[in-house]
């Protein structure tokens, strides 16, 4: 445990030094601040817009931070040969991998929380003096879902990073994120495909590609008319899905990484 936490802590302190990541964080915060400037809408429209765009911006900045951080997590250690001295110590390869992953997750979490706080403050400020204001803390659920989505995205990228180059990994992970976000679309195709081959293909795609789309909490928040039957169920289901899928990916990553030469 000590080794995992040491490696995780080290990963965080290194990540926080990376300018690219901070740039995305700053960009996210800046755009969030900009949404605050809308003036030509009614108060209600404006609030909906801020919430929707806010969560969207956090997701976008989150994607870039997550992908850029995760695809390089392990390749950089190998390339810079810092891994030699680490693995020569009593550190199992799985501990190394989990430590790196945990450090990345923590970094991503910090970034998302920071952006989330800005958004919540913005929404709270907008509602000063409004009639029947909604609780801005409701947004926390949306932010949690974004974070879970990023945990899953990080696991996908780390999994590929143990056997693919960062460049290939970058495009592959992003494509999977996009496909995974169209989960309802792939599900439709799996059912209504013109022939068995097409159906089979999309069924495989639908079940294999992580369903990032499930995590879209944006809609019910932006548009309260669309009702989620049981919010709690929705949240727990997504949590379990994200964590189980991540666990499977990490186990596979460890199995591959164990045989890998460094």
């Amino acid at each position, binding site marked *: 445990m*000590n*080794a995992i936490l*040491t*490696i995780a802590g*080290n990963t965080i302190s*290194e990540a926080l*030094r990376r300018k690219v990541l901070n740039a995305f964080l700053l960009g996210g915060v800046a755009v969030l601040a900009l949404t605050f400037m809308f003036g030509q809408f009614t108060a209600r429209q404006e609030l909906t817009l801020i919430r929707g765009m806010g969560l969207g911006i956090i997701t976008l900045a989150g994607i870039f931070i997550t992908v850029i951080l995760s695809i390089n997590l392990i390749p950089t250690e190998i390339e*810079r*040969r*810092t891994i*030699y*001295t*680490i*693995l*020569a*110590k*009593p*550190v*199992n390869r799985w501990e190394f991998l989990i430590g790196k992953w945990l450090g990345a997750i923590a970094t991503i979490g910090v970034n998302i929380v920071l952006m989330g706080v800005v958004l919540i403050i913005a929404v709270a400020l907008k509602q000063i003096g409004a009639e029947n204001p909604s609780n801005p803390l409701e947004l926390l659920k949306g932010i949690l879902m974004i974070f879970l989505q990023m945990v899953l995205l990080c696991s996908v990228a780390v999994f590929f990073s143990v056997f693919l180059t960062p460049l290939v990994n970058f495009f592959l992970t992003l494509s999977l994120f996009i496909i995974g976000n169209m989960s309802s679309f792939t599900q439709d195709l799996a059912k209504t495909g013109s022939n068995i081959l097409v159906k089979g293909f999309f069924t495989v795609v639908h079940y294999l590609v992580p369903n990032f789309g499930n995590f879209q909490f944006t809609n019910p928040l932006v548009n309260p008319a669309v009702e989620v039957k049981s919010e709690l169920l929705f949240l727990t289901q997504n949590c379990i899905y994200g964590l189980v899928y991540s666990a499977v990916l990490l186990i596979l990553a460890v199995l591959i990484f164990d*045989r890998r*030469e*460094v």
Partner: protein
Amino acid sequence: MPAAIDIKNLYKQYPVPLKREAVNAVDNLTIKIEEGEIFGFLGANGAGKTTTIKILLGLIYPTQGEASVLGKPAGDIETKHKIAYLPESPYFYEHMTAAEVVTFYAQLFGLKREDAKKRAEELVDFVGLGSKSDRNKRISEFSKGMRQRVGIAQSLINNPTLLFYDEPTSGLDAIARRDIRDLMLQLKEQGKTMFLSSHQLEDVEKVCHRVSVIHKGKLRTIGLVDELLAGERVDITVSGATPSFNERLKTLAPEANVLGGAGTFNVKDDAGLVAQIIDTARAENTRIISIIPKRRTLEDLFVNIVGGRLTDEGSIEGAPDVNRVSANKYKELN
């Protein structure tokens, strides 16, 4: 007691991209190293030294064969509590100070943060990076020699019984080399086992009990340093050697190594033979300039085995010629 290191018929092949055949980085290597031994592992660039060490640490896997360390298969996690590794030109997290880096590694051994910090301070002092200005520097501002010292500091955290040092003195200045050599002698005195890969032959000669030379992944020679270097020789330098002197020399000492063009040759240290050569020189009007007894150096051995020319950095290039003069002697002549 099991051997400290036991390598049996070890092979390692690296695939070459776009080619059928692979590089044989390690080729049927068998070596056994006992505890308490300082073992020199010599070889030219690309001989397979680093590859062997990486296999012993479990960083890479052999294509075939077995390797065990302290009685356990290579890469065993328990064994890693008792061993140390100093990679060739070690790399660390550039944004940290020496003490931070060593603290990080100490924590990987399970030391609590405070204990790890204390241990790091001790070791940073010990390797000579304790001055105020060095303490505040980040690794990115360190020179090669300073990095090597950090590498040594991290290798001593766990008071290891077995150390793998991969070219610890290459590329260092005379002072740093002497410091590291002294440290290795200290470790030798403490009864540590060391697997020392190097092509700084002088260091190996002074530090090691036993040496081996590998070439293209194959073991070419192995033995006690004293044994391998036995067979004293004498360098005789003459001037104005006449052709008939050269003729007679050839019959007197057919195995004489002629060093360079001028007039130095190297023969067995045999009083009778040397006296005969002196007589011959007198008779043939050839002036003797000097007669210097020489111990065979590791370098001679190395050059003979690897069969090339040894450049200053110790890399091998050029034609295989067993009786070729070694680089240093060549310089003495010119």
